């Protein structure tokens, strides 16, 4: 494969695509709402109407408005007609959607691309999502895919790639927000020898599905990002550690790797350069703790997912003791765009300390649920009330939970906070991987805190005592409070144990497990106090 061949594939695919494309979302969300049957009906209708020469029905990835699925969009290749989005499409609507191409109206509800839910978005990571068929590498190549890999191999030396990423200001999207460029530089500076790139696709936070969506909708983007990372740090082997709970993502990844290998975009001497890079998939087996870097490494090595103390960090001693770069899916999915548009372009998006965009999974009691990608610095109010349309119940939004079991609940009074790493940390929550769960007045915050504690208790690996036994005691204390059996002293003991577990646990899981309790105590302490025994004099 050389550049001319890549461009030839690109042209051939562009010529192949028909002038009208009916995009049918077949990512996991819409698929479970029945989009596969809808797609079959659409295809039958295209045949029945004799439109086969000009029209094709395509499976595409996530169109983001998951709450209104299945989603279907009619787009024209020349862009001479406005795209038409249909929501909650049933098999019965299919024929009318196709007939509408000749004039007339479809029976399915029309979606509104100008709604703030879409209008406020700034897709970089999701730029191809819902537009290309994730199972065909040609479609990715047709939108410019793998050209950035070619460019770095021939126009950049590895240090320049690292520099580009550093200047872009990209920070880890898995939750911690560690500067990506710095991480790359650390691994790149380790002595030459066997190094690895690991893509962390063990998206375990309940309520988060950004990474699943990216892998299902645009898997090649992640592969290209990994290969670029491999070149930059001097690694020739990558692993994608993906949760077994995402079978469709795994299938799309497997297919993508096969296709990339067939076109020699992965393997030996990529684009005729001396750079070799292969990618293997490792499937998790249901352990949240494996999202933690050292536990993930243990799991890739086929062992129990027990974290180990850091340092040494994986950048120095990771997989099989070799320097290892671990990046999250979304982080890697940003890479091709940063290389294509340049570090300066990326650094202009977002806030001073948090550059670029962030994908969130907007869920819970909010009206519009789905995936959103917004520039950093967008306020929570814009996200929850404008894009999400607020909540349906009286009293409005009560809190927004970010960061999953490691994060916290942000009260409605802080909705004007800008979404960036520092602001969320200041509020006692974290950016996390991007789950954003909206809660209304029906939600009992003590119960939410217990929900997360139950989660951490069940997911603790059991290696260190504060996490293994501390989470159990915390869970019991919260239950006691919920059962109205606790007194003021119990609240103090709860807090003291929270601090102890946070400060003494071995890994991130334990260190952050008390966060949902501490943040609800901070903003909704009254709800705890109302549950206490009157004997304390309160009430």
């Amino acid at each position, binding site marked *: 494969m050389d550049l001319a061949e890549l461009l030839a594939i690109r042209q051939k695919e562009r010529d192949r695509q028909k002038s009208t494309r009916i995009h049918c979302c077949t990512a996991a969300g819409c698929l479970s709402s029945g989009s596969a049957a809808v797609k079959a009906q659409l295809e039958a209708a295209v045949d029945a109407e004799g439109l086969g020469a000009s029209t094709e029905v395509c499976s595409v990835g996530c169109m983001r408005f998951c709450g209104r699925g299945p989603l279907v969009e009619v787009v024209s290749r020349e862009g001479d007609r406005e795209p038409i989005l249909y929501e909650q499409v049933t098999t019965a609507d299919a024929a009318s959607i196709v007939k509408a191409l000749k004039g007339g109206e479809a029976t399915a509800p029309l979606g509104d691309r100008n709604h703030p839910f879409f209008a406020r978005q700034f897709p970089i990571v999701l730029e191809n999502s819902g537009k290309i068929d994730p199972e065909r590498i040609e479609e990715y190549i047709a939108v410019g895919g793998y050209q950035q890999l070619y460019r770095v191999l021939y126009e950049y030396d590895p240090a320049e790639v690292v520099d580009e990423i550093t200047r872009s200001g990209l920070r880890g999207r898995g939750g911690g927000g560690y500067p990506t460029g710095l991480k790359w530089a650390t691994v790149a500076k380790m002595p030459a020898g066997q190094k690895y790139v690991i893509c962390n696709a063990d998206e375990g936070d309940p309520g988060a599905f950004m990474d699943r969506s990216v892998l299902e909708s645009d898997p090649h983007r992640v592969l290209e990002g990994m290969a670029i990372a491999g070149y930059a740090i001097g690694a020739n082997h990558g692993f994608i550690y993906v949760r077994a709970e995402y079978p469709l993502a795994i299938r799309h990844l497997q297919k993508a790797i096969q296709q990339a290998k067939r076109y020699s975009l992965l393997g030996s001497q990529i684009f005729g350069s001396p750079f070799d890079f292969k990618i293997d998939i490792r499937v998790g087996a249901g352990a949240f703790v494996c999202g933690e870097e050292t536990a993930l490494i243990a799991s890739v090595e086929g062992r129990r997912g027990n974290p180990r103390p850091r340092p040494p960090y994986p950048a120095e001693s990771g997989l099989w003791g070799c320097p290892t770069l671990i990046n999250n899916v979304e982080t890697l999915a940003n890479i091709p765009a940063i290389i294509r548009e340049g570090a300066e372009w990326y650094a202009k998006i977002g806030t001073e300390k948090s550059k670029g965009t962030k994908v969130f999974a907007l869920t819970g009691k909010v009206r519009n649920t789905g995936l959103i990608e917004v520039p950093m610095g967008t306020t929570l109010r814009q996200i929850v009330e404008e894009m999400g349309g607020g909540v349906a119940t009286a009293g409005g939004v009560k809190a927004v939970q970010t960061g999953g079991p490691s994060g916290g609940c942000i009260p409605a009074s802080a909705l004007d906070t800008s979404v960036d790493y520092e602001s969320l940390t200041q509020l006692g929550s974290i950016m996390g991987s991007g789950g954003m769960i909206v809660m209304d007045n029906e939600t009992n915050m003590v119960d939410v805190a217990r929900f997360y504690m139950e989660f951490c*208790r069940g997911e603790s690996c059991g290696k260190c005592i*504060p996490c*293994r036994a501390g989470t159990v005691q915390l869970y019991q204390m919260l239950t006691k409070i919920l059962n109205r059996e606790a007194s003021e002293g119990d609240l103090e003991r709860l807090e003291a144990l929270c601090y102890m577990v946070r400060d*003494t646990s071995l890994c991130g899981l334990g260190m952050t497990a008390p966060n949902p309790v501490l943040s609800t105590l901070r903003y909704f302490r009254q709800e705890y106090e109302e549950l206490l025994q009157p004997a304390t004099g309160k009430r």
Partner: protein
Amino acid sequence: MSVRTLRINGIDVAVESGTSILAAAKQAGITIPTLCHLDGVSDVGACRLCLVEIQGSNKLLPACVTEVAEGMDIQTETPKLQEYRRMTVELLFSEGNHVCAVCVANGNCELQDMAIAVGMDHTRFPYRFPDRDLDVSHPQFGIDHNRCIFCTRCMRVCDEIEGAHVWDVAQRGAAVRMITGLNQPWGEVEACTSCGKCVEACPTGAIFRQGSTVAEMQRDRSTLEFLVTAREKKEWTR
């Protein structure tokens, strides 16, 4: 060989680079409490008792796996550390069924010693009274899971010194359990060489020699020391 100078509890110490804080403290005559650490086998940093405060770091770091660095200023006995250590021991007591009065290791138990050292006379956490069992299927030894604190010392001596890897940890979280073989009765595990190293390594009365009665358990840790020295330094000093 390069030397690092540092300060522990105000005492200046000079040690070889690569030394752990735990070893450096020992050289300075300072004892840092540990349970999962065992000389001669790898460290896992699991019991969290050896956490220390290092000036300039907002994280508490385990002394057993943290290497010394030039100019480190370490505190090992701050009120916060003491309180956390006490809570750690309380959690250990509430999580298992530790009844000293009927334990073979009574008086010779590291957990008991630790409770005394951190000043713990009762636990503020409710006892969980887990339903655990006893395995005396081995002709010489037995394990009482009620007394296990999951320090994994038995697993590490068996794997790293004896090389048999009879022990491992099964399940996770609060359900963890030390197992032999495929969670078989210990006596049926063919890989076991009956060397007894796990018995010497166990800090509590969990793994014991059969036939010993209450408060009788004396460990002979010098056996392990001898083996480690023999293996690592090729010096047979016993």
